């Protein structure tokens, strides 16, 4: 189990006074302190971890967010921002001595500007709601995490979320033009806007994917795109993951960037087929869905080329969608892969490493060995185009030993990803889940430099502490020029 920073008992004792102070800023039902009512906020998508916050505050305006943060900053109280709470890495896990700052009431679409192809929305608007607001004009918002009906655009910015279409259309970072945000001091700043490329340091780039550690996003301007005219998919079964991997590499070498390119391994294929009956081939080791989108002529042309490449890579089965229903059927199994796995196991955790694609066979092989070692099953779905793996580890959370083994198995998978030149997380974030693995990828110096950036935004370390970084340092200690000689470094800072 992962440990969190030791709570400050003094803050917990002052809960009633803190709630009263917050109520002076956000009146009425915007402040919640009754434990039963706070239950709704005790966990996020990483459900193995639960913690009631000190108090919940649900502001509705930027001024309120600013006042809440200023109060917290003046009084040294920690703050955990939260969107919809779908984070899979524990990013929104509350702290016992911290204010949970819920952004759900920021749920309005403020401005849709077709002439400039952008939309301005509040951070609590869901990802899908942006597309819903513009689709009658043929537009959509491109990044499409599977959680898009629930997750908020503020959470997407904080996690730099992706989706199955991000090889071609980019992650959140590539589709956000500007934000308004509040610093922990309560100062409100704007980065970017309806124009391209905010000037000065790319703080918008740093904010995107900063997991609630640098500031609270209160408004987002996103790019909207015209929907591709049409889409078709090809469903290919392969006798081995090597063949499937080679097919992916050959598609890209041929200069084709598909709208989506997803792979599943044998356990995932079987689980999905049993669940949704998408007519997937069952006697193959890997299944690839390649989707081409764009004008009809282009899609028809490229789907032929992709099919030829697949045939040349020993495709065992190959089907090209001939109707929209068939295309959706191809996807139905992939899209239901998580719940399908949920049916065959009481619990599962979803990992999220990225690897250089060419190392896929050895990583799958390594995973099979780890599966035997930890005595737990694993099923793999894979954003094949960009090398982002989602191994699903199957376990039973009621068995403490299994949870422990599942976590160790997950950590070993991520170590393997890093060993082959990959990274700990492709789209789900570090949160608490991968926090203690950060040293696998970064030296102490690399991490210290990231923490210095944190200090530039949040010198007191009050925003979402305990997430992302394995060790908390005081900012003064990171600025080496200020360190006095002879002083014992970090003596009073708990390591956790």
């Amino acid at each position: 189990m992962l440990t969190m920073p030791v709570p400050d008992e003094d803050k917990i004792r002052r809960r009633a006074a803190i709630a009263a102070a917050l109520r002076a800023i956000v009146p009425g039902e915007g402040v919640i302190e009754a434990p039963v009512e706070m239950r709704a906020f005790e966990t996020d998508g990483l459900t193995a971890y639960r913690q009631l916050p000190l108090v919940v505050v649900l502001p509705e305006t930027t001024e309120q967010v600013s006042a809440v943060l200023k109060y917290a900053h003046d009084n040294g109280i920690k703050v955990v921002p939260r969107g919809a709470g779908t984070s899979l890495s524990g990013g929104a896990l509350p702290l016992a001595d911290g204010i949970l700052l819920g952004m759900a009431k920021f749920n309005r679409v403020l401005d849709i500007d077709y002439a400039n192809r952008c939309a301005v929305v509040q951070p609590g608007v869901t990802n899908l709601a942006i597309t819903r607001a513009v689709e009658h004009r043929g537009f959509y918002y491109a990044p499409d995490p599977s959680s898009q009906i629930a997750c908020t655009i503020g959470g997407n910015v904080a996690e730099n979320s992706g989706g199955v279409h991000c090889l071609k259309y980019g992650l959140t970072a590539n589709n956000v033009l500007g934000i308004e945000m509040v610093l922990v001091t309560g100062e409100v700043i704007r980065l970017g806007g309806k124009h391209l490329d905010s000037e000065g340091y790319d703080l918008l780039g740093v904010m995107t994917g900063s997991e609630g550690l640098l500031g609270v996003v209160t408004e987002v301007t996103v790019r909207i795109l015209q929907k591709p005219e049409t889409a078709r998919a090809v469903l290919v079964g392969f006798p081995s993951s090597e063949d499937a991997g080679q097919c992916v590499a050959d598609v890209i070498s041929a200069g084709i960037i598909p709208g989506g390119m997803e792979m599943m391994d044998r356990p995932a294929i079987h689980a999905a087929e049993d669940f949704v009956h998408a007519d997937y081939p069952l006697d193959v080791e890997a299944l690839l869905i390649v989707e081409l989108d764009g004008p009809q002529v282009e899609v028809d042309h490229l789907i032929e080329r992709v099919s030829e490449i697949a045939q040349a890579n020993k495709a065992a089965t190959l089907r090209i969608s001939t109707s929209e229903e068939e295309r959706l059927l191809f996807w139905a199994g992939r899209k239901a892969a998580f719940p399908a796995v949920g049916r065959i196991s009481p619990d599962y955790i979803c990992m999220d490493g990225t690897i250089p694609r060419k190392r896929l066979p050895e990583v799958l092989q390594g995973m099979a060995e780890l599966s035997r070692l930890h005595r737990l099953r694993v099923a793999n779905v894979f954003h094949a185009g960009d090398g982002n793996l989602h191994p699903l580890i199957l376990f039973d959370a009621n068995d403490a030993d299994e949870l422990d083994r599942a976590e160790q198995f997950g950590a070993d998978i991520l170590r393997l990803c890093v060993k082959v030149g990959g990274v700990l997380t492709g789209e789900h974030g570090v949160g608490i889940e991968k926090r203690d693995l950060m040293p696998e990828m970064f030296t102490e110096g690399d991490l210290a430099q990231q923490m210095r950036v944190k200090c530039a935004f949040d010198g007191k370390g009050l925003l979402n502490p305990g997430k992302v970084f394995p060790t908390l340092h005081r900012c003064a200690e990171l600025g080496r020029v200020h360190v006095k000689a002879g002083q014992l470094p970090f003596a009073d800072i708990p390591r956790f």
Partner: protein
Amino acid sequence: MSAVLKPASIAELAEMIAAADVPLEVIGTGSKRHLGRPVQAAASLDMSGFTGVIAYEPEELILDVAAGTPLADVESMLGQRGQQLAFEPPDWSALLGGTGSGTVGGLVACNLSGPRRLKAGAARDHVLGIHGVTGAGDLFKAGARVVKNVTGYDMPKLLTGSHGTLAALTSVILKVLPAPETEETVALTGFDDAQAVDAMSLAMQSACEVSGAAYVPGEAVYLRLEGIAPSVSYRRDLLGKVLKRPIEVMAARSSAARWKAIRDAAMFAENPRHPLWRISVAPSAAPGIIRRLKDRLDIRYLFDWAGGLIWLEVPPSPDASEALVRASFASGHATLIRAPEATRAAVDVFQPQAPALAALSGRVKEAFDPRHILNPGRMYRGI
């Protein structure tokens, strides 16, 4: 400027920066030395020793390259494998009076992108990893050789466009993409500024996947289509329907030449004494900005990025007409790309920032370069 430090290894670079007791001007080949505010440096740090391809994996869409490697070498290597830097790096040597298009490190440090920026993203969207040495002399790396990564803060983005004021980059990992098989440009004539922006907006709102949209006043609106041949010709016909106008098509070769000229803002190279601004705004704001400025100044201009990027040439004056230029738009930013050194020292070259943002930028500078050793003052006073 007297001393030149030329490190041969990363370790030596770290030592030199740690030991430096005077400000250093970080230089690749010097092609963009006159971009930004003049730096008060006592020595220069020559990064041209860091050259060569560390890894190029076309099927992984990855290029890991030493920062001092000439951009021209990189582009020709990618071209041989049918790939490119999709953000269309410009070559401003003719504008700025440099020689050659500079180094990859310089390109990343300045976050320069060409016409395809409006479809493919900026340089910053293609920087996946960096290695470098901070102004404190600390080695650090961030990112990796994979195209999708959210592990830790996006330091590659932070360093991109930091104009050498945070760290000296030794290598960068770039996302490389397939070059289109063919291109074609549609030219439309007879528009005024507002009509031109409207036409570009209509094209951008359509499913035509326009990869370049520029307006050269008195000449034409240019709309570029790229991809496989059948798709390009289909979208060309669609564009005609969307714009409800007869359209004239330029073939691939003249199309490429036209876009190179737009990318490099070549039409402004002939007046080296005239200050040149680059203004980024919401595209629909562009015609109004020009209308306001035309009344007061004798200007030449060009719209790129469907109107979102205005290249603006103003008559010579000690302050490059800064006040008028900055007052001409409400939100966005204006950068003084070309002006004499005295002017660039006297006026804000980059868009001034609101106090809270300026203070935050100052703290970010401190986080990397607490002694203000690297390119001090290049971007803002003190930064």
